[in-house]
């Protein structure tokens, strides 16, 4: 099959970007979308041109490195899948596919399709942990945790930190991401002692870094490749209110 790729090219953070159209890229239905970009890149290099820069690593949907707005959707048309898990059988022969970087105030473009997501690290650094030092932990089974709670915590912890939630949100809000981390810890007894402090610190950091407010459009949940639920946002709000009461 052949597709036309309309790709955002931008030489660096300061340069003005533009769409460049690459016609008739040869691929097959069982080739992945990123492999199709590889094919295009290989042909660009053969012609002496610079290849398209994009982030990727595991290509298994778990590292959260890949991103891309494909035909107007973060991670493309498939639901609950990352860009690297997208296969060409999802597209029609001859289709024109538009490929853009995350467009969000929180994620400035570095080059072409690669963006800077270090804001997500900074939010985690503000409080996304349990405070204790290695070496002093009690026996793992000393603290039974109900399966329901553990499973819910696991669902929240499944977040891969890719940034699709903020990229999908018209307000550029990072609530889904932040709430997933806060929820994971709030659901587990290990995380309870610091729950209030954590919620306060992470939310404050998120605001400071210029992410927008949540107005419940649920776009984040719809586009999340890992199916993180917005019930996490409600849980975060509860934790945040509790933290306020304590102030």
């Amino acid at each position, binding site marked *: 099959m052949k597709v036309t790729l309309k790709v955002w090219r931008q030489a660096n953070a300061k340069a003005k970007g533009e769409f460049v159209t690459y016609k008739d890229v040869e691929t*097959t239905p*069982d*080739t992945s979308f*990123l*492999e199709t970009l*590889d094919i295009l890149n*290989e042909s660009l*290099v*053969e012609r*002496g*041109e*610079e*290849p398209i*820069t994009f*982030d990727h*690593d*595991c*290509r*298994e949907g*778990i*590292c*959260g*490195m890949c991103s891309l707005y494909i035909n107007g959707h973060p991670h493309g048309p*498939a639901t609950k*899948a990352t860009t690297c898990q997208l*296969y060409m059988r999802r597209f029609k022969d001859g289709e024109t596919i538009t490929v853009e970087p995350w467009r969000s105030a929180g994620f400035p473009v*570095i*080059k072409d399709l690669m963006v*800077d*997501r*270090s804001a997500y*690290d900074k939010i*985690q*650094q*503000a409080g*996304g*942990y*349990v*405070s204790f*030092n*290695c*070496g*002093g*932990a*009690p026996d*793992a*089974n000393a*603290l*039974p*945790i*109900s399966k329901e709670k*553990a*499973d819910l*915590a*696991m669902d929240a*912890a*499944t977040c891969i*930190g890719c940034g699709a939630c903020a990229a999908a949100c018209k307000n550029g809000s990072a609530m889904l991401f932040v709430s997933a981390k806060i929820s994971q810890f709030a659901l*587990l007894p*290990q995380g309870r002692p610091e729950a209030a402090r954590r919620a306060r610190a992470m939310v404050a950091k998120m605001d400071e870094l210029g992410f927008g407010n949540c107005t419940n459009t649920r776009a984040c949940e719809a586009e999340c490749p890992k199916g993180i639920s917005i019930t996490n946002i409600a849980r975060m709000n509860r934790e945040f209110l509790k933290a306020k009461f304590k102030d």
Partner: protein
Amino acid sequence: MSTIDSKIPEGPVAEKWTNYKAHQRLVNPANKRKLDIIVVGTGLAGASAASTLAEMGFNVYNFCIQDSPRRAHSIAAQGGINAAKNYQNDGDSVYRLFYDTVKGGDYRAREANVHRLAEVSNNIIDQCVAQGVPFAREYGGLLANRSFGGAQVSRTFYAKGQTGQQLLLGAYSSLNRQINAGKVKSFNRYEMHDVVIVDGRARGIIAKNLVTGKFERFSANAVVIATGGYGNTYFLSTNAMGCNCSAAIAAYRKGAYFANPSYVQIHPTCIPVHGDKQSKLTLMSESLRNDGRIWVPKNIEDAKKLQKGEIKGSDIPEENRDYYLERRYPAFGNLVPRDVASRAAKERCDKGFGVNNTGLAVFLDFSDAIKRLGIDVVRQRYGNLFDMYEEITDVNPGQLAREINGEKYYNPMMIFPAVHYTMGGIWVDYELQTSIPGLFAIGECNFSDHGANRLGASALMQGLADGYFVLPYTIQNYLADQAIWPKIPTDNEEFAKVEKHCVEEQTRLMNIKGKRSVDSIHKELGHIMWEYVGMGRTAEGLKTALEKLKELRKEFETNLFIPGSQEGLNIELDKAIHLRDFIIMGELIATDALHRNESCGGHFRVEYQTEEGEAKRDDENFFYVGCWKYEGDDNTAPSLIKEPLEYEAIKVQTRNYKN
């Protein structure tokens, strides 16, 4: 000839670690604050080491090539992590985990290291639970376990099919706490290009800021490399795209010995190769072998029809299926270690029984498990893996395919072995120190604990053991007198010299201005490696490989093309640096494989097998760690130094998984 001191402590194997800790030198708290440690890598090994060292009071500089520490390749580990907790009361113990690991490694690992690994395994689980890692639990609220290959007990802890992710996020959370406290400085999108040695000790690194393209100098009292394995030498592997061996090769070029490079693990359950545009191979977790049964047709006619696409797996009735692992290895069945399972698949496919159009695939079937447990339970266990398989192949193994005489048959998966993990790595002593003082190596990038073959769920265990519980102690034995040494300023001439060399290397590659892309040469490297240095190696094939690799290196040096410039971000240039080192790595693997005239674990030499086709070790002549020393330039063959193995607790035997 150089000799080698592995610094294994005195005493019975079960007491060595306790004795070591009781007598090693420690650094006092006031001095810890004065000491800087560079940790290169943020995978399980690097992140756990960086956070723990910082918690102890050292100042840590931590590097990774991804945009966040959380994205290190460890994130992709699926199946689980072993520990000797014996929560299932099935007879597990520290000794049994130790024994299984040594046996699984085909008696080529160091006893003392493996025992220590088994000893600290339980602390790892405690540590992770305290961090909030959401391991799978039973209804009673206690931790759940599953079984993995090479063991007859259920000792693997897991978090769905995302164990590596959860463990890494745990380590990343501890790391974040230390970054927040100012004890760890985190450098993302930075790549270490070289290590700086002053007066025979590692005193810093040169790293490239991948966004600006500029080199920067970092000085420290010790350098720890935690940069993962070299599986991507084969181009196609289950490793992430960015996995590389450049930091390890930089250390090797500076004089660190490289141990057992030929021990490469080929994992039996991966999605088969489908075309020449493929960029990587996808692992289907080993946990699938708990309930899945591996088979090919009994009759060659059926295999031929499958290859032509005339029939499907589900068309072949029970009595015409050959569950060859259960047939050959009744005691372990589908749960034999990876090397055994991989070779058995190759053997069937070589005989013409492969089940897809390339003839290079076997079936992994869940029909039995679904009959026994019901589809809901099977989906609960493996649903995400089934979906992942479907996304890639368009076939769902949980879907009913047909009924023959009332028997329900489900779509089987198709699987084939692929390069997955590297047991070999930078040589380290008991303290995890390389042959360069002050340079340490942890995690997959060292060679330490798995011998010639690694058991499933033991890499995560080793990475975290090294980072949380071993290195933070042993490094102090080295650092104890370092506080009195003045810190080396980065305008020191050695730093300048090494940085200049890094720049010149890039310029040299940019200036080749040939015709071939990095990937096209890397693919060729992969073909040579898979063909001649893969699952079945021969002396003749390995010699051919060495010749071809030499030619390929010449092709790389004279016909490479890198577009763009050295300014700013240049992904082709960064890949070219990796490829330069993969080629050297390929030569090392082939050299080691050619010298090791025996079959053991992941290294199978066709000339050395029993009549039944099992690996034949030669303990008389090869009971040692093969360490390779760089001889000054890439064109001179490395020299071999042997570290003899000494076993006191375990009797060295022929590995037997039959009964």
